[in-house]
């Protein structure tokens, strides 16, 4: 028999699952419902102040109007929210800037996954052959960028890597004989530099995952491979790779979710804009731009809410693809 039976465990079940679902409801389901509600309302709905409806005599002394300034808020007449069906979604789908942001985010997510997973695998395989202490120290060092705040990473990127005299140009681009790249200003290089940052940030963590997966592989498998004289490729394919495939899936899910929520790095580097020609415009940045245009206090929450919700099917589809890939590709 497996575990506790349900019927008797009613109260216990409530104690164990209750806190999670209470918080789940309060801080996920309610905002989600509000988001859906917002996204269905008219985009040009805004609070209308009384003095706009009934222009008042403004000839009285200015200090008095200043004092009165707060009063009308009590009597604010709010135009009733108008429900407009799927208008906001249609607008978002037709919005070319939204397409750009979505496309950029997809490139960002796939680009970083395609670099991070193989790189981390190679690092982990190399680390496995070391003795314990250097191995631990090296993994620890590789993890450091993942521990730092994304804002710090982008500051470092800005000051240290980027620029004509920056490390990327001085140590990599110029020695290889290319012209120095203007990483944050050249539209062709904004997205690669965002991806480089993601790689720099997460490769260490994924390497740690993979290393743990490799350490869990029983020793006898390597013994057998050695006795059989199996080649390197075969060893990778039939021993090392199966050791990390579950972790690779977990890492991929994590990276997809994190990539879609990416905001801080791009916000710091590009100051909340999308960069030149919006080549660095990520989804969350765009939603933020739509919701709080110029910080002037006139919020356009409806369109922003619709856009945020449109992200869910995309993530769902990607995760679904990953799970399918696991079934066909990962299972031997």
């Amino acid at each position, binding site marked *: 028999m497996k575990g506790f039976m349900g019927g008797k465990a009613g109260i216990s079940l409530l104690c164990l699952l209750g806190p*999670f679902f209470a918080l789940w409801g309060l801080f996920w389901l309610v905002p989600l419902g509000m988001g859906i509600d917002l996204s269905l309302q008219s985009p040009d709905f805004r609070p209308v102040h009384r003095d706009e409806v009934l222009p008042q005599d403004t000839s009285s002394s200015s200090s008095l109007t200043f004092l009165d300034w707060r009063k009308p808020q009590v009597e604010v007449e709010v135009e009733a929210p108008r429900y407009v069906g799927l208008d906001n979604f249609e607008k978002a789908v037709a919005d070319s800037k939204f397409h750009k942001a979505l496309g950029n985010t997809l490139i960002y997510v796939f680009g970083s996954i395609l670099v991070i997973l193989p790189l981390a695998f190679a690092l982990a395989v190399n680390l496995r052959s070391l003795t314990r202490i250097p191995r631990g120290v090296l993994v620890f060092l590789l993890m450091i960028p993942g*521990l730092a705040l994304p804002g710090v990473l982008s500051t470092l990127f800005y000051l240290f890597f980027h620029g004509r005299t920056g490390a990327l140009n001085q140590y990599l681009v110029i020695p290889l004989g290319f012209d120095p790249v203007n990483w944050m200003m050249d539209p062709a290089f904004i997205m690669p530099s965002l991806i480089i940052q993601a790689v720099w940030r997460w490769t260490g963590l994924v390497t740690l995952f993979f290393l743990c997966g490799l350490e869990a592989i029983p020793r006898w498998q390597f013994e057998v491979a050695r006795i059989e004289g199996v080649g390197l490729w075969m060893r990778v394919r039939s021993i090392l790779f199966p050791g990390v495939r579950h972790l690779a899936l977990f890492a991929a899910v994590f990276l997809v979710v994190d990539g879609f929520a990416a905001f801080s790095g791009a916000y710091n580097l590009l100051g909340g804009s999308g960069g030149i020609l919006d080549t660095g415009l990520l989804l969350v940045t765009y939603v933020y731009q739509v919701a709080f245009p110029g910080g002037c206090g006139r919020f356009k929450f409806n369109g922003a809410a619709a856009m945020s919700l449109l992200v869910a099917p995309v993530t769902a589809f990607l995760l679904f693809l990953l799970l399918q890939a696991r079934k066909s590709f990962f299972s031997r």
Partner: protein
Amino acid sequence: MKRIPSFLFLGVAALICVYPFAWMFLSSFKTNKEIYQPTLFFPSDYEWDSYAGLWSGEYLPFFDYFLHSLLVSGGQALLATLVTAAAGFAFSKIRFRGSAWLFGVAILVILVPKQALAVPLFEWMAWLGWQGDLWSLALPGVASGLGVIFFTQVFRKVPDELIDLAQVEGLSPVRTFVTLLPLVAPALMTFCFLHFILSWQEHLLPLLMLDDENLTLPIALAKLRDSSHRIPESVGMAAATLSLVPVVLLFGLGFRKMKTALVELSLS
């Protein structure tokens, strides 16, 4: 001899990961002019002015923000660990009707992350009157979908015999869960730590939710580096160095346990 390319590869990777941070630390002593030469490593002299400036709150109450970040991230990580571990235990060790369905509902959270819900979350907090409060930051994100998946896996590895034993002893499921906690301590620490990092790095929600006197570190750092360049770059570098200290310390302390937990999890 065969090892040399391997060492070289790892060495270069480690250098790329560490060198910029060493540069960052040393830059907290540099003048702006020195900082704008990225290939310069050592400062000409070591003055602790920037740290003193942060300590005295010359630019902004940095250590208040630091404390807020610690409170929010620590609180969120501990709560999330406890709450999702309990849920994971229930999903893996208690059989009840609708278990699979509830599990599916719980992990829906992954599809719409809190960053995507920032706008309605902002309105909801304003309606509750919590906007600007640190709680408004700590509580969303406690219900973590990844946490439920993680702990369901962790508790699946706990042998059912232990559960049977607990039942024979007449322990309720809640008591059993509490008794089992030390057994899964490495996993608890791992998740707590990862969640702490994610919450420590959160930028969008505090940007929306918090009032100016209640900010957290990521925003403080962004403010220290605003476009007007009134504040010396070294102050930003000092703040960045300090922001790294708690996470590196935590990571250093928990590293062993984390590895144990991850190795155990990948044994299948």
